[in-house]
């Protein structure tokens, strides 16, 4: 079949870990000849609806992006261009026949990484650095904390928000501050945190993408999130002429193969790894559900 014309609209620069997940999946698909891919990045909220309309008018069949900051207007644009499929990151509901949504639910991996971290900490303090307390970040940090607590109820969990998505040096400073406050394992929702860990020779957990190659001796586990399953599902729907007005989040869940944990074996104690593997199997089998907590972590 002819490749589907897909446009990506990224509110942030595509270096941003989350956007890079989307971007990479889209680029891979383009390389395989499944889609034709064009994209815009750093698109501010003001310009986002226009970018959507322009891509729609240019004849793109599927538009991938993020509706978080423009939920209302994005839906309006979708209504204005009923022949174009929109599948956007959102914590909200799908709408009509051509507005699909997906969430970033890689918290299963965060929970599992927390299980490792809980057993590894010697100071009994771990820390998380987040950008802003939005639901998906909250869910992630809460799951990590929950994982830690499940194996080490007495462990203290520090949280800091830096108030911006793009200030790696600041994320690093926040990480250092937590290390100074006693943390010996950091969960870095933001890039920059692992740099603090690396500098102080402690371990860190990454999120969304695999940070281990970048910080080989520091990041021992990552709560991965893969966008490809979601993308494939959306492309299939578009190709088959099916409405995309549905929620694609589930394709990103661990039990659907969308997210997972990758970790460096032998860093955590063997029994911790074993306990974690057991839980991982439970999750995949649907026997255990990681609690979803969207409240701002304390």
């Amino acid at each position: 079949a002819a490749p589907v014309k897909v446009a990506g609209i990224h509110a942030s620069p595509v270096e941003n870990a989350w956007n890079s997940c989307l971007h990479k999946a889209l680029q891979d698909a383009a390389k395989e000849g499944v889609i034709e891919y064009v994209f815009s990045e750093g698109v501010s909220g003001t310009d986002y609806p226009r970018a959507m309309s322009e891509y729609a008018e240019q004849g793109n069949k599927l538009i991938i992006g993020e509706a978080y900051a423009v939920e209302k207007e994005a839906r309006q644009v979708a209504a204005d261009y009923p022949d174009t499929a929109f599948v956007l990151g959102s914590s909200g509901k799908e709408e009509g026949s051509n507005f699909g949504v997906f969430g970033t639910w890689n918290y299963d991996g965060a929970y599992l990484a927390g299980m490792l971290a809980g057993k590894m900490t010697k100071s009994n303090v771990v820390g998380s650095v987040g950008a802003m307390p939005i639901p998906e970040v909250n869910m992630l940090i809460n799951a990590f904390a929950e994982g830690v607590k499940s194996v080490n109820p007495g462990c203290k969990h520090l949280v800091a928000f830096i108030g911006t998505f793009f200030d790696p040096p600041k994320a690093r400073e926040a990480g250092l501050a937590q290390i100074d406050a006693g943390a010996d394992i950091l969960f870095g929702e933001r890039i920059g945190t692992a740099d603090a860990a690396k500098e102080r020779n402690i371990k860190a957990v990454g999120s969304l993408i695999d940070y281990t190659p970048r910080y080989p001796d520091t990041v021992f586990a990552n709560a991965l999130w893969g966008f490809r399953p979601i993308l494939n599902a959306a492309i299939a729907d578009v190709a088959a002429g099916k409405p995309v007005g549905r929620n694609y989040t589930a394709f990103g869940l661990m039990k659907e193969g969308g997210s997972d944990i990758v970790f460096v074996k032998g860093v955590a104690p063997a029994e911790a790894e074993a306990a974690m593997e057991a839980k991982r199997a439970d999750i995949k089998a649907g026997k255990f559900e990681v609690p979803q907590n969207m409240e701002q972590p304390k």
Partner: protein
Amino acid sequence: MRLERREHRPVYLLVGTPIAAVIAALLLAGLLIAIAGAPVLEAYRRILVGAFGSRLSATETLTRATPLILTGLAAATAFRARLWNIGAEGQFYLGAIAVAACGSKLLAGLPGPILIPALLMIGALAGMVLILIPLWLRLRFSVDEVVTSLLINFIAVLFVSMLINGVLKDPMAFGWPQSQSVVDHAMLPKLVARSRLHVGFLIAVVLAVIIHFVQARTVFGMQSRAAGLSPQGAAFAGVPLTRTLVKVACLSGGLAGLAGAIEVLGVKGYVTTDLSPGFGYSGIVVAMLANLNPLGVVLASLFTATMFVGADGMSRSLSIPTYIADVTVALSLLTMLVALFFTQYRIRR
């Protein structure tokens, strides 16, 4: 080589230099486009198409010009009285959040014809309140308002962020911190159906005309200009400096607050922390391009919006980095500044 002020400004210069500036900016941008490996001439065509080629692009250009006109007027009115209000960005946000708060809950019960004007007033008031802080610091402690108004921008945005994460957070929202939406009947009517262009554009243009009239014809206009040109001379002539400054500040802050209000009521319906891609700062540049003339602000805003929307669309259709849009705008601003300079000066020898 020496610069000499022109006594007369010939018409060919007034028309010719801005055109030369646009051409120069496009040539420079063309260089960068060529580096990216895209066809330059095609890119130029796409810029035009992107700004005015379709109903979508034309309405989008005007929509984007709307807040610029208002923040541009905010800067122009303040600067004319030598009040260096760099705080339009913060005032914009405060106006926006005030409108969101009142339009979603407090006043939501009012009927539209009353609600909309009330909300616009509230937005303007919020902007005024915010500018009074740097003004007070200047009058009371002689703190330079360039710096305080700049710093207050950061505080204002954090304040808004706090509100939309807290008391004003939309419980029904889809997750990201955003304020509750204003009720539907508070939204400004659209000028063109199925577009984002709204009545706010007309409001902005009408305000520009009114302000032009006020500055040119009224006692307040003359006094504020005098105060700006020479505080000492104005004081001798009996211009109440403090009162004039306060009035000017309120006008300027009010306009910036109104810009935020109109952006909420016209386009977005609610507030997020990325409501403004630097409208407050661009307003300053627009005002100076316009030589602080209110009608010029309208033209300068349209020009800036055209360049941005056009180049933005071009980047998408040619798949070159989106940042080319900002680069093109910056280049056109710089070349336009230089061009306007040469309508006033000539180089001798």
